[in-house]
C-alpha cells in the first residue's frame, strides 16, 4: 500500500517535472510545478513529515507559486515564440543522454546505500508540530531569528524594486 501510493505520486511528480521543462507557456509550467509540490507533499506525509507537508502546501504551493502566477499574468508572458534552431539529432541525443545519466545515478545511489529498513507509513512519529517547534526554539534559535531578518530584507528589497518611480 505504501509502495503503491509512493509509485503513483512519484510518477505524477516526474510527469509534472517533465511537463515543467517541456511546456512552452509559463502558466502551464507554473501549474506543473504546483503539481510537483502537491505530490511531494503527499510523499512527505508518507515519510512522517506532516508539518512540513502542510507547510509546503501553505507556503510553497499557496503563496510562492501564487506570486509566480501573478507575475506571469501581470507581465502577460506568452508562449515561447519560435523554437530555437537546435538540430534534431542533438535534441534527441540530449534527451537520451539525460535519461542514461539519471539511470546511472539511480543505480549508483541504490548500490551505495547501506541496507537500512524500508519506509513504513507511521514508523516515524517525530515530525509533529510540537517536535519541530521544540527543536526550532531551542537548538536552532539563532537561524530562526536570522531568517526573520532575511524575510525583512526580502520584503524591503521587493518593495523598493517594484515601486513606481514617482
Amino acid at each position: 500500500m505504501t509502495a503503491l501510493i509512493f509509485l503513483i505520486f512519484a510518477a505524477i511528480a516526474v510527469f509534472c517535472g517533465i511537463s515543467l521543462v517541456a511546456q512552452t507557456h509559463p502558466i502551464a509550467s507554473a501549474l506543473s510545478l504546483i503539481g510537483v509540490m502537491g505530490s511531494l507533499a503527499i510523499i512527505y506525509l508518507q515519510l512522517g513529515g506532516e508539518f512540513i507537508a502542510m507547510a509546503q502546501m501553505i507556503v510553497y504551493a499557496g503563496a510562492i507559486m501564487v506570486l509566480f502566477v501573478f507575475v506571469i499574468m501581470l507581465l502577460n508572458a506568452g508562449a515561447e515564440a519560435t523554437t530555437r534552431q537546435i538540430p534534431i539529432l542533438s535534441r534527441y541525443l540530449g534527451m537520451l543522454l539525460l535519461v542514461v545519466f539519471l539511470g546511472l545515478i539511480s543505480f549508483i545511489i541504490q548500490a551505495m546505500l547501506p541496507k537500512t529498513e524500508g519506509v513504513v507509513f507511521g514508523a516515524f512519529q517525530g515530525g509533529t508540530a510540537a517536535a519541530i517547534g521544540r527543536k526550532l526554539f531551542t537548538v536552532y534559535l539563532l537561524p530562526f531569528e536570522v531568517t526573520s531578518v532575511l524575510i525583512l530584507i526580502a520584503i524591503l528589497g521587493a518593495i523598493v524594486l517594484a515601486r513606481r518611480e514617482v
Partner: protein
Amino acid sequence: MPATVPISWYLILSAILFGLGVAGFIYRRNIITVFMSIELMLNAVNLTFITFSYTLKKVDGHIFSFFVMVVAAAEAAVGLAIILTVFKNRQTLMIDDISSMKY
C-alpha cells in the same frame, strides 16, 4: 510490490527531479521558467532532507527543510521583483535578448 519502500527509491526520485530542474535551467529561455526550475531543484533537495530525517529518526531534517522553504520564499520575492524591473527596462523576458552586458 514490496511491503516497505526502500529508502533508495525516495533518493532516486529526488535525483530525477533535481536533474530535471538542471535540464530546465539550462534549456529554457524564459526567465520565469528558469526561475521555476530553480524552485524544482529546491524541492528535490527538500525531499532528500526529509528522507534522511526519516532514516536517522531525527527531526533536524525537517528543520532544515523548513529553512530551505523560508529562503526560497525570500528568494522568490526578490527574484520576481528583479524580473519585473528587467521587464520594465528591456521589454522582453527571453534571456537571449537581455545580453547588453556581453562583449
